[in-house]
């Protein structure tokens, strides 16, 4: 069942690729939207049939490279199911958004279908090598999206930087995986066996090195501060749908890696070096927020806020590793907060990037001071962006608040100082979003020179259909979080117990 969910988009992609040239673009886009919708429906089916206390479910395990102990092992649990659902929802949104795409639609659609398969595959993978394969294929897919359809002149340079940077990170990751599998007897890459066997329990230095490799690899992917410089150019040059997926899904791969691989497999060294991750997380929060405050380019500012939100996740995950001074409830609250933050950041930043796409489509530039008083021209667009911005800065009633509240409450116990610094992140994020809203949407009306004579068109139905459901989902999670938390909490409890063992 999971394999069907994972590879349905790939089937569509192959079908489209082999289809005769005569297939018009509109049909390609519709096929993409249909496939994404079908995939989402399947995932909802999975969600309904999912037993929150059942641990890993819908498992499929077939030997793939038996000699190396590599198997095609997929399965879903409380951590990955929400992310898979969010990925499918986001891809459906980008599909709807791209209905009006005009540039080389067929290859654009094939690339995104491929990306969907790879992203879903990564979240359901329970084998390190399978995880790594999907991890790298996602880089390839995103490289072509940015290089091919990026609007800036520097699209190719940005794409190359993005690819090389994250690819180097993935090599470090592979190193870590190999280190892990070698420590296990018999050598295996299967995640569940490695968790059960806990091979690196004793070795201090060896486990530390493996954790360093994993940490660097994943830190490059969730951009934490020292390794984040590939994100802003990649985002400013990527097309709207591309950067929505880049921010919504690809960034989660790194964060998910911490919760799925680093914590359960290296509990001892994770506890010993948790402080490092907490510090990096807090620095990412404050640094990302401050640098975002100083940006003049709207999309680049949002890219930096992504660094901040990922910093929160790292803070929560690091705090969950510190046993002193906290109880299990606080730590599992932090981990739940981290997972919810991944989902909420995916939805909100995805919506924000799609809306910036609309902005660029109409005004031709992302510079904030080129626009003013847009809400008189496009009230619906202004309302949507306003709601997305307020949700992004953590206003209750949206998923952002639920995530950040749990993270901060769960982390304060063990990391008082770090969490207090992270609190300032909340304030700075609020200030920068408000400043952006004030500059662009309120005040007297002024459009950039590049804007067409007809003025600033409001949201077209396809764009509205793409962004409003995302914000709606965020609102539902914000108002009634129990349906998501019931799934995530048991899984985060197990992760917390695994780290504490």
């Amino acid at each position, binding site marked *: 069942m999971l394999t069907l969910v994972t590879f349905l988009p790939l089937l569509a992609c192959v079908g489209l690729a082999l289809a005769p040239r005569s297939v018009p673009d509109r049909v390609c886009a519709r096929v993409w939207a249909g496939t994404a919708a079908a995939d989402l429906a399947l995932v909802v089916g999975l969600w309904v049939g999912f037993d929150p206390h059942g641990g890993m479910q819908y498992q499929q395990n077939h030997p793939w490279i038996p000699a190396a102990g590599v198997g095609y092992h997929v399965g879903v649990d409380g951590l990955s199911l929400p992310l898979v659902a969010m990925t499918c929802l986001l891809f459906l949104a980008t599909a709807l958004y791209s209905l009006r795409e005009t540039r080389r639609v067929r290859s654009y659609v094939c690339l995104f279908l491929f990306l969907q398969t790879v992203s879903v595959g990564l979240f359901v993978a329970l084998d390190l090598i399978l995880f790594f394969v999907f991890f790298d294929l996602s880089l390839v897919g995103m490289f072509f999206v940015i290089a091919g359809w990026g609007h800036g002149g520097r699209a190719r340079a940005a794409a190359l*930087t993005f690819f*090389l*940077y994250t690819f180097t990170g993935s090599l470090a990751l592979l190193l870590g995986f190999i280190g892990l599998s070698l420590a296990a007897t018999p050598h295996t890459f299967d995640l569940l066996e490695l968790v059960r066997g806990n091979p690196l329990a004793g070795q201090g230095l060896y486990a530390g090195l493996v954790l360093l490799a994993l940490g660097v690899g994943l830190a490059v992917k969730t951009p934490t*501060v*020292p390794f*984040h*410089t590939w994100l802003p150019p990649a985002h400013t040059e990527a097309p709207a749908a591309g950067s929505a997926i880049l921010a919504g899904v690809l960034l989660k791969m790194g964060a998910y890696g911490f919760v799925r691989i680093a914590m359960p497999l290296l509990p001892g060294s994770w506890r010993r070096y948790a402080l490092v991750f907490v510090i990096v997380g807090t620095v990412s929060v404050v*640094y990302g927020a*401050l*640098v*975002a*405050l*100083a940006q003049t380019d709207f999309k680049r500012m949002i890219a930096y806020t992504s660094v901040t939100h990922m910093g929160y996740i790292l803070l929560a995950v690091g705090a969950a590793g510190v046993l002193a*001074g*906290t*109880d299990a*409830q*606080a730590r*599992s*609250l932090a981990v*739940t907060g981290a997972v919810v933050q991944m989902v909420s950041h995916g939805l909100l930043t995805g919506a924000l990037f799609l809306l910036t796409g609309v902005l660029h489509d109409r005004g031709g530039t992302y510079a904030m001071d080129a626009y003013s008083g847009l*809400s*008189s021209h496009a*009230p619906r667009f202004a309302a949507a962006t306003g709601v997305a911005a*307020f949700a992004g800065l953590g*206003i*209750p*009633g949206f998923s952002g*608040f*639920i995530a950040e*509240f*749990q993270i*901060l*409450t*769960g982390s*304060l*116990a*063990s990391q*008082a100082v770090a*969490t*207090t610094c992270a*609190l*300032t992140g*909340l*304030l*700075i994020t*609020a*200030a920068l979003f*408000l*400043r952006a809203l*004030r500059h662009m*949407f*309120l*005040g*007297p009306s002024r459009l950039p020179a590049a804007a067409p004579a007809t003025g600033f068109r409001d949201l077209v139905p396809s764009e509205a259909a793409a962004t409003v459901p995302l914000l709606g989902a965020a609102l539902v999670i914000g108002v009634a*979080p*129990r349906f998501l*938390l019931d799934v995530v*909490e048991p899984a985060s*409890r197990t992760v917390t117990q695994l780290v504490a063992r």
Partner: protein
Amino acid sequence: MSALLWALIALPLGAGAALLLSGRRWNALAPGLGLAAAAGTFGLAVASAVFRPEASAPLFAGVRAGLRVDGLSAVLVVAVAAVTTAVLVASPGELGPRENRGRFFGLMLLFAGAMTVTVTATTLPPLLMAWEVMGATSWALIGFWWHRPDRVRAADTAFVTTRAADLGLYLAAGAAMAGGVGSLDLTALTGAQGGWRHVACAGLVVAALGKSAQLPFSFWLSHAMRGPGPVSALLHSATMVAAGAYLLLRLHPLLVATGWAAPLVAWTGGVTALALGVVAVAQRALKQLLAASTSSQVGFMVLAAGVGDPSGGTLQLLAHAAAKSALFLAAGAWLTSLGTEQLPALRGAVRRHPLLGAGFVAGALALAGLPPLSLWVAKDEVLAAARAQSPGLYALGLAAAAVAAGYSVKALWYVTRPLPHDHDHDHDHGQEQDGGRRGARGPTRSVSTPVVVLAAAAVFLGVAALPGLSGPLRGVLGGGQQHAPNPWEMALSAAVALAAAGAAWWWLPRSAHAPRTASAGKRWAADWLSMERAARAVLVRPAFALARALAAFDDRAVDGAVHHLARGGLTLARGAARADDHGLDGAVRAVAAGCRRLGAWARRPQTGLLHQYYAQAVVGFTLLLSIVLLVR
């Protein structure tokens, strides 16, 4: 019974959301719908005050979202609903037909729902959620006429300041969890172990002071005045600023438990009451004066919370809510009709609109704390409790009361002057046109009636608080060691209030005409104790500078480092290529050349001359022979 409470919350929030989304589509119907929703909420509020329902829902792991209507919140829920209804009655007058009324009424109802949740919350998460939603709606309402960038900037300042203070609540929640209070229940906070209790208490105090515009944070209230009249009336007089005081009143046990919190809160309240009173006196615009007075009156409530007199604090809150919302509605009405809020320009406004003027006069008198009216009674309660705590506080309170009388009389004096001779001329020279509305037509009846009703409530509430009748009120609020003010205290405060009022009345005509030589102190007070300039200099400007520095650092150093790494890789590659071409390839070519030379040498003996071959053969044989002989 919990259904009643869920309905009480769902009605305003739901109706507000619906109206907000409708926007301009039902512009005509919006006021009616809004009013209906407000009335319904009022009804539900009264019912819930009677039945005291309780409800809770699972929210996070081990944390429930609990709501309960107990003594304190019953009174407040009714008050909030009442003031909301009154303000919404007055709102259509304020807003022109072309305004986006759906959005206005939607936001007002959303705010009312959030306030209701704040006063009924029993655990921290719902309190925090409502607290933040109040901040957001206040941002939206202050910046309602968003065409003017200065209004939106004011809204931003207000929101960021309150949000900065709200971080205290996040801190408190985290501290509670760390301190072992897993359920984050407000009453259980005192049970938090060790330092965490102090951290939680500190967080809560900061959040409350921020929201109630107390001293360090009070400058945002002056910006909040740029919003429409009704907004100031509802949010920035009766409900939002009172929320902080309410929180302190409810958490008095925690304040006492930590030891240092209660006196700190009391003294902050007292000092704010005095300082902001002086600021009010120094103001030239009516709404700024009223805003500063709000801050100072809330100071009294915070003082009451600090000294542990919930009933006095609540009475002060109710009385002040009624009086101040009436005054703000009147000020708003004049702003729309006369197009100005500067006191000298409002000369004789009372005479121009008699009904509205009467309400304003009654409210101002109550605000002055003159004997028979409600605020005087409430203030006495608070001062009595303060005197029991420490005489210093009592003196501070009395001084604040005197200053309160001063600024109320100042407002009264200007407003009640006889109309200047060029009666009609006054109408059209409206100074700053707010929101592009022409202030030509007078305030309609829909504004006057709520003003009068509120003013009446302000006047007669005092009766309820008289010593004889205050028993039931104390019972409702849940008692606590109360100090009924003894007669000599009440007489003393009355005397102080009357003396201050008389002095102000006597002194005002002289200063009104005297040349304006503003002393440094006066200018400092007029500028709200330049708190905003200090905050901007200390926090905002360095933050932006740091942000710019970090951005530059990020682009140059971090990005630069990566690019240098890449460039280093390239030069390394070129070096390797060069080494490969000249080094290894050269060696191989040298070997090849050497072989060629050797080849040439090898051909030399092959001369073609037979005899030379024989010679070589002989030499070769002899060598071989000698080798064989020697070796064997």
